[in-house]
Every structure is written in structure tokens, then in C-alpha cells.
């Protein structure tokens, strides 16, 4: 087969035209799409890298903040611990003081209570003793004892201090010189005269004496002169003993 030069030339032209056509309609569009896709992938990768970098930065920032927060928390905790210790010390001191005050108050109350109880016991003991003494002296009391008490009365009256005599004298003037003499047992006339003589002699004037009996006196006399009275009886002595015991306790 020979070469047809017209065909040869046209085929050269045809191929060159085909190269242009395919470059225009096939290769270039496909390559452009591939390039755009590659650019998109590159951009996406770049964005992913940037996002990763940003995430790493955020993580580092978060860790820094976390560390700062931990340090601040430790600092605050230490401060709070110190405040708690100080407050605990203050509270303990206040509590100690309160307890000491309360203890003192309790001790004072207990001492007062014990004192009061002791006082009550002493009073009760005195009353009991008075009862015993009263019962005993009631059995011992009698005209003989009373006569001896009258002797003691006359003897005490003779030794009565002068200022007491003045008081009695003043009282005797205000009551029209009436004197009430109470005894536990009937007083014999002799004894009455001895008593009257002793009173008249001591006060220096004649007194009007009236006589009464009171078994409560047990034995002895009670001479009432106005607001004043002179006692020398077992009952009065027991009362005086009881009162002295109560006041003395």
C-alpha cells in the first residue's frame, strides 16, 4: 500500500485537531476538577491542622488554667486551714474560759448548797438536840430545880450591869411599875418575897408584882417589865441555845 499524501497531510491535521479537542474538552476539565478537589483536600487538611493546633492550644490553655486553679485552691485551702486553726484556738480558749467560769459557778453553787445543807442539818441537829434536851430537862424539872434557878436569878440580878439596870428602870417607869413574873411551878411565898425584895432593891423603888404560871418554861422564871424581860428558865435557855446554834452555824 502506498502513502496517499493528501490523506497523510489530513491525518496529521486531524490528529493535531484531536489533540486540541481532547485537551479542550477532556484533559483540561478533568485535570481542573482533580486540581480543585486536591485543593479542597489540601484546604481541608490545612483546616484540620489548624483545628488540631487550636485544640492543642486550647488544651494547653486549659491545663494552665487547671494548674493555676489547683495552685489557687491549695493557697485558699491553706488560708482556710489557718483560719480554721485560729478559729479553733479561739473557740477552745473561749470554751475553756466558759468551762472555768461554769466550773467556778458550779463550785460556788455546790459550796453554797453544801453550806445551806450543812446549815439545815445543823438547825435540824440543834432542834433534835433541843428536843432531846427538852425531854430530858422536862423529866428533871421540878420545884426544887426551879428554887435553885430562882436563887441563880437573884444572884444574876445582883450582878446585872448598871446600863442594863437603867434600861429596866426606864421601862418600869413607863409601865406604872407593873411587873409580870411567870414561873413553871407555883412559887412559894418565901421565894416570892425574896424575888420582890431583890427587884425592889436593885431598881430602887417598889414594884407591883403579878404572878403567873407557864409550864412551857419547864423550870425557872420570866420577869416581864414593859418591853424588857429577864429570863432564867430552862425553856428560854434552850431557845437561846438553839438560836445561838443557828446563828453560830
Amino acid at each position: 500500500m502506498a502513502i496517499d499524501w493528501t490523506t497523510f497531510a489530513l491525518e496529521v491535521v486531524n490528529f493535531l485537531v484531536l489533540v486540541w479537542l481532547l485537551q479542550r474538552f477532556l484533559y483540561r476539565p478533568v485535570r481542573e476538577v482533580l486540581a480543585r478537589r486536591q485543593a479542597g483536600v489540601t484546604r481541608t487538611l490545612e483546616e484540620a491542622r489548624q483545628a488540631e493546633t487550636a485544640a492543642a492550644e486550647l488544651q494547653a490553655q486549659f491545663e494552665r488554667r487547671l494548674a493555676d486553679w489547683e495552685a489557687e485552691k491549695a493557697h485558699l485551702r491553706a488560708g482556710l486551714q489557718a483560719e480554721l486553726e485560729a478559729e479553733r484556738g479561739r473557740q477552745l480558749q473561749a470554751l475553756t474560759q466558759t468551762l472555768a467560769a461554769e466550773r467556778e459557778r458550779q463550785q460556788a453553787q455546790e459550796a453554797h448548797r453544801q453550806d445551806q445543807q450543812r446549815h439545815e442539818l445543823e438547825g435540824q441537829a440543834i432542834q433534835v438536840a433541843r428536843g432531846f434536851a427538852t425531854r430530858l430537862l422536862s423529866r428533871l424539872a421540878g420545884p426544887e430545880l426551879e428554887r435553885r434557878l430562882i436563887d441563880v436569878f437573884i444572884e444574876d440580878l445582883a450582878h446585872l450591869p448598871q446600863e442594863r439596870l437603867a434600861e429596866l428602870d426606864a421601862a418600869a417607869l413607863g409601865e406604872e411599875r407593873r411587873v409580870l413574873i411567870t414561873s413553871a411551878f407555883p412559887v412559894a411565898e418565901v421565894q416570892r418575897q425574896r424575888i420582890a425584895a431583890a427587884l425592889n432593891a436593885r431598881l430602887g423603888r417598889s414594884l407591883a408584882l403579878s404572878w403567873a404560871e407557864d409550864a412551857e418554861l419547864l423550870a425557872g422564871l420570866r420577869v416581864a417589865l414593859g418591853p424588857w424581860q429577864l429570863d432564867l428558865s430552862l425553856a428560854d435557855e434552850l431557845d437561846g441555845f438553839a438560836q445561838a446554834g443557828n446563828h453560830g452555824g
Partner: protein
Amino acid sequence: MESLPVLFYLGPLGITATVVTTWGLLLILALGSWLVTRGLSRDRPGLVQTALEGGVQAVEAAIEAVLPGRGSLLLPFIGTLWLFIALANLTGLVPGLHAPTGNLSTTAALALLVFLSVHWFGIRATGLGPYLRHYLAPSPLLLPFHLLGELSRTLALAVRLFGNIMSLEMAALLVLLVAGLLVPIPVLMLHIIEALVQAYIFGTLALIYIAGGMQSGPDSSFHRSGPSP
């Protein structure tokens, strides 16, 4: 010498069936390319687009394997060679048509274009002086052999493709004459394989020749990144 039958005249030019068939192929390829690349999507490629992108990338990868960094430069020429020759070879399967590559005029035209492309890309890559000097290397005495080699390999390109495709059609015709309708399918499969193999061989040889021309200069390095100016 047998002359090609002229179908019609276009002015003084006698248009043969080979040229008309080539025009048809041009039309099919151009129209098909336009159709399949109309609605290319960057984010949602369809099946056809995926296949198209795969094919283009495969061709570019094959070029890059020989000439790293020159895939985009040589894709139009080498890719068109492979596509046109494969399609032209397969045209012979269509009843009533003959493969344009079964015509020596077509294969000679393609070989001439390869010949010119080798020098064009070689001079672009290395410069005119260095490129021409490589014919004198390693000794000026080898210049005739260089020139003879250029002519012989160009002639071999044209004759190889022409001979194979013409003989393939003739062999198929003979087999059909002898065996009738008993062996059409094996023959057709052989035809397809041979057509694709010949297209691959022609395009690969063209690529290798061009690569040889581009790498002939003393300061030419195709391993450097980026195309030459």
C-alpha cells in the same frame, strides 16, 4: 503501489475513507468528551466521572513513571495517541469500516508527529544547541548512526502499527473465509487484544522516544521539579 479510493473531493483534496473514518472518530471523541465532562462535580463524582478521572490519572501516572514531573506536559499528546490509536484499531471490528491505522498514510502521519514531538519537546527541555549536540555525542562520527536511528525508529513506528493492524484484518478475513462462522468470537477477542496492545506499544514507544529527546541534553534533568520554561 495501490492508491487509496477517493470518496469525494473537497476542493483539490481527495477525501478517502480513512480520512472520513478519522473524522468520525474525531467527532465521537470530541462529542463524547464534551458530554462526559459537562457536569463534572468536585465533591460528588459519579460512576462515569470516576472512571474518567481514573483513566486520565492512569495515563498521567504512566507518563510520570517515565518522565517525573512531565505528566501534565505530555498528557495531551501521549494520551491522545493511546486513545486515538486504540479507538482507530477497534474501528476494524465494525462491519463495513476499516481501521484508519490499517492505512500506512495514517500511521506515517502519527509517526511523523512523534518524530517532530521528540525534537520539539527535546529542544524545549534542553535548548536547541545542547539538543543538537547530543547527536555528536559521544563522538561526531556517530552522527550518521544517530540520524539513521531517528529515521529507522520513525519508520518502524509507522510500519509496525500499519503492518500489525493490516495483517490482523487480513488474518481475520482469511480465518473467516476458511472457518466460516465457527470462530468469529475468538477472532474478535484477538482483534480487541491486538488493537489495545498495538495502541499501548505505539504510545509507549512515543513516550520513550520523547523522554530520550528530553533527557539528551547535558544539563537536562527531569527529576527536577516543575516543567521547563
